[in-house]
């Protein structure tokens, strides 16, 4: 997370070699990416961009998804298979023959996601995936990301949506002015006032609630972030278990 222009996208572009570091190294699975081309890295790292219009160019969604697969060396049959699987997972199965340009913004965003997901990357980086998605799609997205994560995929997500992060991501890296200013558990990073201020984030709503409680009842921690934690604190105050 970080304010506008903090360097989040720039950092992510380093992961897949679109930008090469002037100093330091980017190591992917023990290999320095200096020795890999972007196309080689693309087999391991999938990047979903903020603007889906920057990558969609074919006349059907199916072609769009298989395009990336063929690029990184899958056979036609495999690509077809993987494409169908991904479309089902993203709720796009009825859209396979539609043109990406006839879809709404949110749907196009999902097509772009599908085209990257289909390659089954080991590392998945998403730039602002929640923009333009309704609550239901957001929930679907997070379920998908969690499933990928349990299967061993590293999920990196750039976002300004603080509640989305708090509920779903265990680790947060905060950036400001091109530097990483905090890196740790989401819980501790996002309740730190200095971090919130420098990243121009508003405090999580439940932390605000916890802080007001804290003013009156000092035994309630002012750094709670989750609903369950707050519930526990309130039950305790009321003399429950």
């Amino acid at each position, binding site marked *: 997370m970080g304010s506008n222009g903090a360097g989040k996208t720039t950092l992510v572009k380093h992961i897949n070699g679109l930008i090469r570091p002037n100093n330091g190294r980017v190591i992917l699975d023990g290999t320095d990416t200096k020795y890999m081309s972007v196309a080689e890295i693309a087999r391991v790292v999938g990047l979903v961009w903020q603007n889906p219009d*920057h990558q969609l160019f074919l006349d059907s969604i199916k072609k769009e998804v298989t395009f990336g697969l063929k690029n990184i060396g899958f056979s036609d049959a495999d690509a077809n298979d993987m494409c169908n699987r991904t479309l089902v997972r993203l709720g796009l199965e009825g859209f396979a023959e539609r043109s990406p340009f006839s879809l709404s913004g949110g749907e196009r965003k999902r097509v772009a996601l599908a085209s990257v997901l289909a390659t089954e990357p080991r590392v998945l980086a998403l730039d602002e995936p929640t923009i333009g998605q309704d609550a239901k799609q957001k929930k679907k997205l997070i379920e998908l990301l969690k499933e990928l994560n349990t299967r061993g995929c590293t999920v990196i997500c750039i976002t300004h949506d603080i509640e989305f992060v708090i509920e779903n991501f265990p680790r947060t890296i905060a950036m400001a002015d091109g530097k990483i200013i905090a890196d740790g558990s989401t819980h501790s990073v996002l309740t730190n006032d200095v971090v919130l201020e420098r990243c121009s984030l508003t405090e999580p709503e439940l932390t605000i609630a916890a802080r007001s409680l804290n003013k009156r009842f000092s035994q309630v921690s002012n750094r709670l972030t989750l609903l369950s934690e707050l519930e526990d604190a309130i039950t305790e105050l009321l003399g429950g278990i």
Partner: protein
Amino acid sequence: MLLLNCLEGYNISFLEVFQYTRQESVIHQLDPRSKLALSITVAAITLLFLNIIPLLIIFLCMIPLLAAAKSLRRWATSMKGLSFLLVFIVIFNTLLSTVENPLSFSIALAIRLLALMSSFSIFFLTVHPDELSQALIQMKVKFEFAFAMSMAMRYVPTLAQEAYAIMDAQRARGVEMDKGNLLKRIRNIVPIIVPLIIVSIRRALSIAESMESRGFGASENRTYMEQLTFRKRDWAVLFVSVILLIVTIYLRFFTILPDWVLWGLPL
């Protein structure tokens, strides 16, 4: 072909020479109309010749003008970006041309391109897009056209940025832009061009909508806050330009040019 080169070398930097830069200079203060006359004159003279010496003279005359506009450095970097294209022009023309001394001819062509670019860069580097549209309006061009023109200029750098973003996006999907034979490279441009066109059309539509919602074209007769006025030095530039043009046309078509002007490499 030009586009192909830009995309392959990821080098659109030479177009920067057509982008306005804010400076305080004698050239910047001139009326855009007199600068337009100057640029067109120089361009016209350039097109009258196809020999190394006269083209080189014109080209060298541009340098003090660019220096006066305090834009020499910017111009130099842009010309460096153009060098690849120039080498390309020289090699291909030398190999394919049917004229008598192909190398000499191609070098002349390359210098001609440099001189042409420089002459127009003097105009575009020093004329603010607003000034340009105002100048057009005062030259009796309809407001809508003048506005469209300045909009187009305004969106050149945006388009370039967009092209870079699209190239990044496609490379991340495994499109290898700098590999393969010529045919494959040309085919690799499709994933760049199609999104670029679509994004541009989408943006054009949304700009049109936002302009209409802000009342574009609501009143028939527009008035303008700033009017351009011709001063003495503008008349001087205009006068010199016209004289130069007439003299060169006379020399070129109605006199016999001396040998040193027609000199060329014996290749």
